[in-house]
């Protein structure tokens, strides 16, 4: 099981499709930095197939005014949670 990190928003670019295609059925996705813009509707629709395994970094949501705006099925995690995700999965792959 892998953890994928995404730091860009879906708006503009095929990167999102590439990441989704690369992810295995149990892999998890963590949105960080500008990637958290993808946590809010309507952009979050891109990640609906990842319900239950899609996360967003809390402090990045907060600094961008998205703390209350993310889709309710996207799981916010703090930095300790980010570390835990990297520890619980076998490897982490970064997409940018």
């Amino acid at each position, binding site marked *: 099981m892998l953890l994928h990190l995404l730091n860009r928003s879906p708006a503009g670019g095929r990167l999102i499709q590439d990441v989704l295609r690369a992810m295995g059925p149990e892999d998890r996705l963590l949105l960080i930095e500008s990637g958290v813009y993808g946590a809010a509707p309507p952009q979050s629709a891109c990640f609906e197939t990842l319900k239950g395994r899609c996360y967003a970094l809390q402090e990045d949501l907060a600094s961008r005014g998205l703390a209350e705006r993310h889709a309710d099925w996207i799981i916010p995690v703090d930095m300790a949670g980010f570390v835990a995700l990297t520890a619980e999965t076998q490897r982490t792959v970064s997409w*940018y």
Partner: protein
Amino acid sequence: MASEQGKLRYALVVLGGPYSQAATHSALRFGEALITQGHRLDTVFFYHDGVYNASRLAAPPQDEPHLVDAWVRLANDQGTELLVCVAAALRRGLLDEREAQRHGKPAFSVEPPFVLAGIGQLVEAGITHDRLVTFAP
């Protein structure tokens, strides 16, 4: 290289320059957090524009975080190795004393704890550490 029970040895790869991109901030925050969780941050490898993190000449304004100093503190407090890809560094003007002399440059911009290193050490880090996490622009 067996880790203590539950304690993982991490290597971070930083591909973004300080301030220009978010990569450095995220890497520092992640590094702090993994140490707090009881893991080890053994190695940080700077590649691509990440090598700019090694500049001893960085002079950010007083009211902004001093990112280069933050890496130095990490190395001093935790023994984290700060490896800077030599090929990427030289092209971008990040030279230690030896390279500066070799290339006839008037000054050097990299000093310990930052150490110029070959890409082989990035490959090595990926193979020998329990986890490798990359922060990119």
